[in-house]
């Protein structure tokens, strides 16, 4: 099914925006889930490494130079569509990290166990909150890092706090 039918990216569309497997294993890296031509480019300016490129017209979708991206995550809160994530599948202990934008209140606490959700809002696994950043520079789009089993880093895109309504 096309993402325009129900708002879910899947199949080939999803594969196309995944970093190459070797890059995923090499360290934290950005995943930009921006697939439509809309006039927008703050991600390009947010990247200090020049790793995000929009060629020509600002209506073109961004591409990532994965050799330049170091997974710093400065682009995440710059994206008006909240479509940028950083994933880390490089650890050897089977634990992966997903850094995601989280514009809800209250924020989770570091050390909290939350329910990790996929693109359809379905619970995938439990996740451990390992970092919460909410600086002024992020302008009310806080970043939350959660640990999930490494095989889920490309599936988990949100989380629900325990006790929050489903």
């Amino acid at each position, binding site marked *: 099914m*096309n*993402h*325009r*039918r*129900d*708002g*879910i*990216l899947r199949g080939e569309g999803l594969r196309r925006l995944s970093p190459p497997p070797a890059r995923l294993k090499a360290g934290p890296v950005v995943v930009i*889930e*921006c*697939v*439509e*031509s*809309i*006039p*927008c*480019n*703050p991600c390009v*300016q947010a990247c200090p490494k020049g790793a995000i490129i929009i060629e020509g*017209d*600002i*209506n073109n979708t961004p591409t990532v130079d994965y050799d330049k991206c170091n997974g710093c995550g400065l682009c995440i809160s*710059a*994206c*008006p*569509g*909240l*479509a940028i994530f950083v994933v880390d599948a490089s650890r050897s202990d089977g634990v992966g990290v997903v850094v995601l934008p989280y*514009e*809800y*209140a*209250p924020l989770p606490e570091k050390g909290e166990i939350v329910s990790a*959700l*996929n*693109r*359809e*809002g*379905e619970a995938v696994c439990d996740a451990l909150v390992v970092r919460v950043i909410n600086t002024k520079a992020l*302008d*009310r*789009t*806080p970043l939350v890092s959660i640990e999930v089993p490494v095989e889920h880093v490309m599936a988990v*895109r*949100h989380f*629900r706090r325990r006790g929050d*309504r*489903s």
Partner: protein
Amino acid sequence: MRLTQHPILEFDRGREIEFEFDGRKLLGFEGESIAAALHANGIRVFRESIKRKRPRGFFCAIGRCSSCLMTVDGIPNIMTCVTPLKEDMKVETQRGKGAILLTESFSPGSRPTEARRGAKDVATVSLAIVGAGPAGLSAAAYAGRMGVETIVIDENDVPGGQLIKQTHMFFGSREHYAQIRGIDIGDELIANLSGLPVKLMLGTTVLGLYPDRTLSLLANRRHIELRADAVILATGASENMLAFENCDLPGVYGAGAVQTLMNVHGVVPGKRVLMVGAGNIGLIVAYQLLQAGVDVAAVIDAAPEVGGYHVHAAKIRRAGVPILTSHTVQRVTGPDRVESAEICRVDDHWQPVPGSERTLSVDTVCLAVGLTPNCELAFQMGCRETYVAELGGPVAAHDPDLETSISGVFIAGDASGIEEASTAMIEGRLAGLAAAELLCREVDREELKRLRSEATSSLKTLRAGPFGATAREGKRKMFKVGS
């Protein structure tokens, strides 16, 4: 229910005061709308309709419809959605049309005395801009910087138009205020006016616009006549209504009304909402509802595809909200407020599919089914009208400079065709420049030319992608017909 925490907004509420509703003492905050105060107290039925005595409540939140009319301090037909709450106000459910007040100072047969008559204020200005939203404020900044003496009129007490409810970041690039939240863009647009010959006239309604460019204004219960050499109409748009069984029941609200209640007054519209419309407005408001802690049962749209940006859809999908395309709402039920909504699938011809009905337990249905440009002032004064479906219906015909069929009268922003706030700002700049060219004898032509070409190319960029196709086609048709 009032919001106590919000990820984006802080609510600067006034003093807590007592007021009366049908004899009951209630608490509210000074200056919030009467409708918001009642809603916060769980009251949804504001009046009885005039013939059928049907319950009616809050609906448009911008003083445009008749749903929220109540009797306040003895005066009937008060639009409670735009009337600020005051201490000890007596608010009563209005039944029927409301009785005419016969007071000592105005009784049948009495006439206003000479002293009370003819107190009409008359003012003149070079440029009058109607609407202090993104288009109007941008027009004022550009006309102002070219040296045009300008007054911006808005019926709200706070400038910014719809921007004051937009908690999300805007798209675009730096020049289009990208990555800045709508609520903050309004402040920037106001700051841009400092040092310019621009005055804001807030809390002022334009009652009429006449062919000689005279505006009839209502401010503080006084009638003012304003004569302008040029007029820019930046009056925005009104929400479309959808007809279904019991669509007039309290709990069926426009998306803009829900935003006003939630993001301006900090009052949630209900506990569980059905959103009708998966365009950008429906998707964004659904997300804002989630941010306010409100459950969204589903977002439905009769079209077979999501109309808005995928990134907006993705935000609510990953939070667990289903988006049901090819679905419509058939009826809502409840004795005097929405308690459930029945939805069903529609086929390729937009007809309901029998057997596909489903009932959702919701207390609010939010309508985001499109907008119609507000062109009534242009039509009142006789501007030529053109129907362009791609622009949202009947619009005042205009040329690429946004000038209507009447010289010196311009129209910009959603009023000239439904688009995004980012395009409205650029259209406002263009209209401001065109007005300056018309009004100033000693205008800096080079600067004007430069600013105009900058704005024109910006507009072209914003409309270039697939989501700009409708507006592009609409404007093409419009300019082909000519103003």
